[in-house]
């Protein structure tokens, strides 16, 4: 098939990791890396890779819309809010990796095909990408009144954006557990750990279970969806068998605890930064689907 041309806005670590992943895509043709600082090392890396590299920001993209039919925004929430109307006016679809959260949220194994014609989609949060598939796996088997996740990430991989908006991070993730994961109610907890060497991203997913749950079916569904995530996030793995506990006094719920580790694929990001890798990997996976839809529409 013909590849759909795309560009990355924001030549930082995330943008550079996207560049590496996009160069392997059979649905997307990365043509440009765009930033605002001519001295940016990310733009230099893009130039070396033979891409157009511009420091003229969003205006360059709008002026070159033919080669930027899909744009990955890896800037900041503030910058994205300013760019979004321009992208929309130019008819460019956007994968928003910032915390701006203006478009609908997408998790590939859950609702990949739901927003193919949206102006922009967002990737929720790294914790959401890592844990919503597990909640979804359980809700495919049994109703889950309440899901709770604990995401522990290396301090070094939590940038200023996450740190300054930690409430939004937990709130957005919790909302995703319910709206996309299918739980009645969601709660998200994030912990930053400064250990050296840095720890690989860990996520614990707790789902409340009814007393008569089929544990084997739940475990099988967890395995199945973990494998699906693994197909686009190679560093995604279950650390242990799911741990089931019988109903206790705690709300009368039984529960299952799922332990997920996410290592980076090492395209550009260090191994421990699985929290960033799962965002770029999910963004590329979703964009490939948008590209195929565009191809079909042609």
């Amino acid at each position, binding site marked *: 098939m013909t590849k759909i041309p795309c560009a990355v806005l924001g030549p930082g670590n995330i943008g550079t990791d996207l560049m590496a992943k996009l160069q392997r895509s059979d649905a997307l043709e990365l043509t440009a890396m765009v930033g605002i600082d001519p001295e940016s090392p990310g733009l230099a890396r893009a130039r070396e890779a033979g891409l157009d590299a511009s420091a003229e920001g969003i205006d360059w993209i709008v002026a070159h819309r033919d080669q930027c039919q899909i744009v990955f925004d890896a800037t900041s929430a503030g910058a994205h809010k300013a760019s979004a109307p321009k992208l929309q006016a130019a008819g460019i679809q956007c994968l928003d990796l910032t915390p701006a959260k203006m478009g609908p949220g997408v998790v590939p194994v859950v609702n990949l095909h739901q927003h193919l014609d949206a102006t922009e989609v967002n990737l929720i949060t790294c914790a959401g990408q890592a844990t919503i598939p597990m909640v979804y796996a359980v809700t495919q088997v049994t109703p889950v009144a309440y899901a709770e996740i604990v995401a522990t990430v290396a*301090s070094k991989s939590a940038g200023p954006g996450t740190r300054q908006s930690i*409430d939004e991070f*937990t*709130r957005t993730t919790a909302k995703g557990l319910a709206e996309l994961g299918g739980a009645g109610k969601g709660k998200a907890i994030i*912990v930053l750990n400064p250990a050296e060497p840095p720890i690989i991203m860990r996520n614990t997913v707790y789902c409340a279970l009814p007393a008569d749950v089929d544990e084997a079916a739940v475990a099988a569904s967890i395995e199945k969806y973990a494998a699906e995530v693994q197909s686009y996030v190679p560093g995604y793995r279950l*650390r*242990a068998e799911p*741990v089931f506990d019988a109903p206790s006094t705690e709300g009368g719920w039984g529960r299952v605890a799922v*332990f997920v580790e996410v290592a980076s694929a090492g395209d550009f990001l260090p191994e421990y930064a699985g929290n960033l890798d799962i965002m770029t990997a999910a963004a590329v996976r979703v964009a490939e689907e948008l590209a195929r839809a565009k191809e079909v529409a042609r």
Partner: protein
Amino acid sequence: MSRDVHFCDSTLRDGSHPKRHQFTIDDVRRVAGALDRAGVPWIEVSHGDGLGGSSFNYGFSLVDEYELMAAALEEMSQAQLAVLLLPGIGTKDELKKAWDTGARLVRVATHCTEADISPQHLTLARELGYVTVGFLMMAHMNTPEGLVEQARIMSDAGAQVVYCTDSAGAMTPSQVAARVSALRAALPPDVAIGFHAHHNLSLGVANSLVAIEHGATWIDGSTCGLGAGAGNTPTEIFVAVCDKVGIKTGMDALALMDAAEDVVRPIMDHVPLVNRDALLLGYAGVYSSFLLHADRAAKRFGVSSKDVLLEAGRRQAVGGQEDLLIDIASELADADRV
């Protein structure tokens, strides 16, 4: 009232850990009333892991924490209500709700290297009118200089008090002295310094006195030592010692002894003591609230709680990572089978 130190009693917050978050309205009424009558100026009430802590990971509260706060307030005539908030667990919404409920002091707590997740909450707390406190947990894991850098982030964001928080009860007197004096020397004079101890090395009272000698003017304790791990600085012992050495606390030592003996001890499931696991927390520098979670996970998987705690220490686990203990226990069980 003239005092040399401001005091926050955390029985109804840190004590929530050994109570597995099962405080009843009646427990809270009786404790808050007794502490109020003994002249305790600040009484902290919330889930052990702070506002919004009720969860699978930390344990669900038997009674909603805002109901507990409201009940405590009804028993308080001179004391004021304090709460704890850990960004990443609780949010600004909970901060507002606690203010509306009547809390007037908040400790915004982060790991001792992660203060930059607290400015939003500290700023909002100041705007709302809270006495605003930055709480640097697991302070043994940062150098005095590092701690100063983190404390500056909190004081710049509006904290009026910054605590050196020995969450693991792991600090020796000289370590307390080094950190508290570094904070005192570096922070502006209108920012006060606090110290929060755990009694895992039996140093709670001694370390609190050392902190005061080096410039701390805010001290925490729990009546009868009811707090995580081997408990906190026992309030009644601290106040008794202060009386003897001439530190004015404004609290009544005899009334606190009665509160400890007649009110708090009867509601304790067990008396916090320096048993092997609690001592290990202090020895290996492990978050005190892990104690009962490690015990539960160890029993669940048939491994030793000692090994679970030591492994948590080796992995440099920080506060909030209670889920890691299940993971570790399950790995230890697997290793046993192989």
